[in-house]
């Protein structure tokens, strides 16, 4: 399998069936080094299954997933060692302190890290002695990103990182994702928030019924839609209700 230089993820005709439900039905795409690649789609479209195949958590029925030149089918553990993973449902040990959780996961990657430095990258260093159960929703998501960073991953996979977060926490997480990208990581994320995709992603794939129905930059996709003569139903205003809320309650996260 040859990959063009600068390509870190290659998905080639991935297929996966659960009993009689086809979750992934022939998905192919490439992710370039250093970009944020988004996968968009409604619940049950096949986003999580696709991302879990790439992470080596699930076997595809057919097709290939190549991560940084390694075929997942051939060496899932080698792939797991170079990627960072944030699952849709994250849970850590209630009675361990954050620094201890980071330390435990670092060992599972045979990585030597300073837990406080890792926590500082996601702005949680001041909570290093807190327990997981004491964190807010946004802090829990940031901790799960911190855990995903312990092995200094080539690619970071984020599965619906902002689902269930309030607007402030969501914006803070976006800033964090941009910072991690600026530090040189490639990021693949799934979301069903369009403004999140527009804000973060260099390119997006829209997925529906296990198939990619569109793949391009957010701007190009919007331009293509407008070119068909599409007019939004409501007059576009300069601000959104989101902006109103943030203006009233403040942009800063209070933690």
């Amino acid at each position: 399998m040859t990959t063009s230089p600068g390509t870190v993820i290659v998905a080639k005709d991935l297929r996966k069936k659960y009993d009689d439900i086809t979750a992934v039905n022939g998905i192919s795409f490439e992710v370039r080094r250093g970009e944020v690649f988004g996968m968009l789609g409604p619940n049950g479209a096949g986003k999580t299954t696709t991302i879990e195949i790439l992470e080596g958590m699930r076997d595809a029925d057919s097709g290939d997933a190549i991560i940084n030149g390694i075929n997942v089918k051939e060496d899932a553990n080698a792939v797991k060692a170079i990627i960072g993973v944030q699952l849709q449902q994250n849970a850590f040990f209630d009675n361990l302190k954050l620094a201890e959780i980071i330390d435990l996961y670092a060992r599972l990657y045979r990585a030597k890290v300073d837990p406080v430095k890792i926590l500082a990258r996601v702005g949680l260093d001041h909570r290093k002695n807190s327990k997981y159960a004491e964190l807010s929703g946004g802090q829990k998501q940031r901790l799960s990103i911190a855990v995903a960073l312990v092995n200094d991953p080539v690619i970071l996979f984020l599965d619906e990182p902002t689902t269930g977060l309030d607007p402030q926490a969501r914006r803070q997480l976006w800033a964090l994702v941009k910072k991690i990208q600026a530090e040189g990581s490639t990021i693949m994320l799934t979301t069903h928030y369009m403004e999140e995709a527009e804000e973060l992603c260099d390119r997006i794939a829209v997925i529906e019924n296990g198939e990619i129905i569109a793949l391009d930059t957010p701007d190009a996709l919007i331009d293509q839609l407008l070119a068909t003569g599409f007019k939004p139903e409501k007059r576009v205003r300069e601000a959104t209700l989101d902006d109103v809320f943030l203006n009233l309650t403040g942009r800063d996260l209070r933690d």
Partner: protein
Amino acid sequence: MKIYLALTIVSLKMYFRNRQALFWALFFPLLIMIIFGIMNFDGYNAPEVGVHDAAQNDASRTLIQALRGGDNEVLDVSTGTNEEIQYELKFSGSRAAIVIPENYGVEGELAVIEVTYDQRFMQERAVVSTVIDQATDALFKEFAEVPTEFRVENSVSINESFIEGQGQGFKAWLIPGISAMAIMQTGLFTVVFTLVRFKSQGVLRRLKATPIGASHFLAGQLTTKAIVVVLQTYVLVIVGAIVLGVSVGNGRIGAWFDLTILALLGGALFIAMGLAVSGWAKNEETAAPVANIISMPMMFLSGVFFPLSVMPDWLTRWSQYLPLTYLADGMRAITVEGASITTLGSELLGLSIWIIVVFIVATKMFRWE
């Protein structure tokens, strides 16, 4: 009124769908009722006696049968070598050792039956000696088939002697059984509750995303439980012995080594059982009743709180094969009877077979998510 009725119906639905509440409301009290109901607490309890039959003839076999009594058991007879029955009398629950001589039932010879009692139990001695007198008298006459006028009354004589037994009674009996039960509870319940929680929260899935992975983590978890099981056994036996004032293994230091081995075997068995249950169950709600259904009957049928002898035979015929019975019997033999682990053949075999079976079931049942 209508709203009240509707809400009550909804609430009843919620209640009956909660399996754990149903378990504690019905299964548990019923189980206790039935188990204690079939125990023979208020009836006559036949004293345990050991018999060594050196004669091995029809006469001696008939005598043993007579000692046992007919449909109503008068003595709880077990047979064995002379050493075995003397040991049982000295250290265990046996109250008399009866040796039937080689010449028992041989015409024209005087057979002397040697009976040894534990002098601390004179009530039992009275029962046993009466039963022996009646049995030998009636049986010898019948077997000899001599006309009444020629019968020799003293063809059988009974020679009684007394020892001071070392058996330490119910208190000492209780400690190893309760410690064995605690091994079961720790192994089964702590494994079930931590693993099922990790599983339902997705912790195990997240560990599977790492290259070293969840199996190492699981091994660490299980090792922790094994360490806890051993430490807990030491604490329970030591505190029990001090508080209840009994000795452990007749003061033999090796008893602690033997206890450690048994605790580890029992720990492995019940941890594997916990692994099987938590591998199968999806959440705490299904895991808890299953763990209870497994552990409750053993708690009462394995001779932890009271000896198996108070249970009907049809039940002990099965309950002797329960894993907790093997563990409790083994630990009791070491702490109470001063036995060494090398003499515990059947207990070790029973535990080993259970460990293998349960491990196979656990590996088949285990699911990560």
